[in-house]
């Protein structure tokens, strides 16, 4: 019974966040070892995504500042996270592995997203474009070891606090990805991350946590919307800080900060742009197309602040509500030169096809190049399934 109580206590200190990869996870208790068992988090989040920080860091009332009419791409995200905490190879006496707790996490998602406003006009003007790619999202797999704070989990007096966690993870791009859509549930590229964090109890009922991470993105061989999303997303580095405080028995409040910086994104051979320059009127029967090449923005960033309330409805059941407000940021934009062509639609290299240098458009990078300035709300529910063993005694050897 005491084990169950401790498990529940530890479970209180974790809350599933409905965070996308572009928003740092600031869930309370994220760096604490839970009592061994399976914890399932179900969460729902929504974000209107109707504002962004542009490349100069200015907040804009649209998701695509390069277009005259405002655009937004509202997001509804449901998430299920399965998190196990467990000892590993206990009887093998393997250095490092056998003497501490570990964690494995699988996160599944479903994202509903759409495009509204100015960009829709451009989508509707062509028959080969799609509004969105909603559906199953990417899957995140993580494995971590508690560097300290997870050694004496069997002892009666141990407290699941004052711990450090090294977490390694991978984003598996299983999400729906419509190549012709400006917004998608999936990312269509692999990403690997490493995260190091620590938790500390400064006073009774409080939990202070801080951590940092780095994410490496692999190539996206078919970036969305004609290549206006990066073919190579810049690597990310982030930092997070949170403080939680118990207000009443079973009721906790937490505040958090996060800061993420992404290196320059690369764009390869964009096929079109919604704000393409008009072909020269002086040349009859001509059109234009983006000049093939590799282009680069100046990178992205996002700084957020958040508040969350956590309530233990039952011993194994935790309900949480969170609010995240972006403080500052920067989106990816780049200059895209065009090539004029006459006659319109001719194939380059053909005898009667002539080309010349055209005007340049300043375009918005899509997908992960957007840093949204809109608020995010999330509700989550956590249930502690326990160990699930056939044995009655968790921790007993046989």
């Amino acid at each position, binding site marked *: 019974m005491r084990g169950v109580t401790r498990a529940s206590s530890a479970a209180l200190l974790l809350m599933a966040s409905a965070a996308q990869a572009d928003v740092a996870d600031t869930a309370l208790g994220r760096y604490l070892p839970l009592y061994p068992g399976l914890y399932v988090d179900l969460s729902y989040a929504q974000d209107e995504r109707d504002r962004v920080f542009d490349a100069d860091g200015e907040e804009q009332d649209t998701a695509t500042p390069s277009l005259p009419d405002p655009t937004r791409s509202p997001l509804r995200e449901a998430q299920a996270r399965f998190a196990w905490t467990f000892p*590993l190879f206990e009887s*093998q006496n393997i250095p490092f592995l056998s003497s501490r707790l570990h964690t494995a996490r699988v996160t599944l998602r479903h994202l509903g997203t759409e495009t509204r406003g100015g960009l829709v006009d451009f989508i509707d003007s062509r028959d080969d474009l799609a509004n969105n790619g909603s559906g*199953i999202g990417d899957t995140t797999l993580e494995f971590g070891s508690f560097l300290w704070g997870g050694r004496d989990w069997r002892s009666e007096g141990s407290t699941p606090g004052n711990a450090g966690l090294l977490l390694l993870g991978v984003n598996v791009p299983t999400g729906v990805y419509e190549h012709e859509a400006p917004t998608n549930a999936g990312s269509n590229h692999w990403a690997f991350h490493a995260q190091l964090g620590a938790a500390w109890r400064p006073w009774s009922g409080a939990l202070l946590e801080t951590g940092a991470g780095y994410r490496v993105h692999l190539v996206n061989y078919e970036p969305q919307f004609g290549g206006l999303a990066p073919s190579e997303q810049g690597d990310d580095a982030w930092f997070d800080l949170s403080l939680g405080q118990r207000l009443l028995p079973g009721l906790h409040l937490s505040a958090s900060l996060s800061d993420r910086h992404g290196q320059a994104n690369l764009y390869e051979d964009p096929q079109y742009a919604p704000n393409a320059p008009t072909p020269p009127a002086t040349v009859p029967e001509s059109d234009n197309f983006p000049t093939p090449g590799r282009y680069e923005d100046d990178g992205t960033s996002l700084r957020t602040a958040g508040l969350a309330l956590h309530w233990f409805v039952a011993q194994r059941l935790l309900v949480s509500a969170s609010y995240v407000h972006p403080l500052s940021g920067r989106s990816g934009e780049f200059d895209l030169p065009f090539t004029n062509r006459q006659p319109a639609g001719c194939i380059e290299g053909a005898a009667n096809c002539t080309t010349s240098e055209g005007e340049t458009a300043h375009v918005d990078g899509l997908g992960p190049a957007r840093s949204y300035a809109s608020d995010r709300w999330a509700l989550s529910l956590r249930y502690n399934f326990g160990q699930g*063993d056939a044995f009655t005694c968790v921790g007993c050897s046989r």
Partner: protein
Amino acid sequence: MRRLLPLVAALAIGLPGTAKAGIVFTPHLSEYSRLAPGQYTEFTLITTEIEEVYNREGDTVHVGSPFIPPGDSVDATLLLLKYLWIGNVFRDTDIWYLNDHPQFCRIIGNLGHQQATGKAVTRDLTAGQHSGASGLGDLFGLCGIYGEEHRWGPVKFSPLLATTVKFPVGRYDTDALLNTGTNYWSVIPQFAFHSELFGRVYIDGTFAWQFNGDNDDPSFGGLTPTQPADVRNIEVNAAWKFSEHWFADIGWSHRRSVGPNRYEKYSLNLKDQPLPPTSACNSSAELLGVVVPPEICNSAEYFYLKPRPGPYEDRGIEGTLLTAGIYYVYRTSTVLNLRIAQPISGRGGQIDATYDVYAQDPDSPGATPIPGAEQTSTQNAVQEAAAVSASPYLELRMVYLFWAP
């Protein structure tokens, strides 16, 4: 220990149902042993970088050969989520045989990501096709019944019968080189057995026949079969127990189509037409393998190419692979498994498609092909029913017992 073996056995009953062109159809440790009644879950990650495939001669060739140079690949990842129930709903009845033989049912869902790289993407875009796919895969459901368990001294043997149904609910784009769904039904009856020797050696084997339905909407310009052939599967696996925690196994798996795949809606073509004279010869040769005669190429202002829809047939497919893996059993609630699979022989689908050359829009009234200008191009069939990988894959699995038996 009695608890451990059933859990190990819960790893993969009914894998024929997850036959994803040889990527998933492999044997495992104690796969067909008689399990304790209960509910089991399994999570599996399979990943591969397919750089080589088998052609219709059984030779190993690089992906996209001969249309793209070596160096590119098809990267594929599959996440399987499985739920298994074992019990006996007839236990309290008088129904002969069923009341004393437990039954099992399983649901297998999967998420996938497949993406071609480099020049394969460029080529496919020229034909108006995408080269990647991700999202939900087909759903597999199976039910079966365990047979009698027999003991002869140190030997233990038990059979089972099962049938898997593949529901084609996965994402399917007709304009894509790759898909996570197949767009056709499959029904797979299966006989399997499990045997133990001296409590140290575990042998599992099965024979399954995969009946495939038709696919009326083939993808990638009709290079997936409209009538996928049925497939026979044979597999066997032998494992050695080092301790209650550690196991290792090796396996052999073979599948072979019953007759050829049939293609009745071939349509792969250059997206932008007509072709100007200066690029007609080069483009058609590079992208479709069609060599338009130079005298025709240089004699007209524009050209159109149009493929004949068929029907075409390949020579059938087959694939054989070896597997090797290690298992770690943590108490009675978790099993971790790492495995590698290496194809050792195979045969993939290819067809000889015919293209006609037109001097006017082929769909315009009265349009007729230029006499004697038709060309034949050998195309590689694609996706689950027709392509056979010659590259190894890696598999990582975790079985978890949500609720104790």
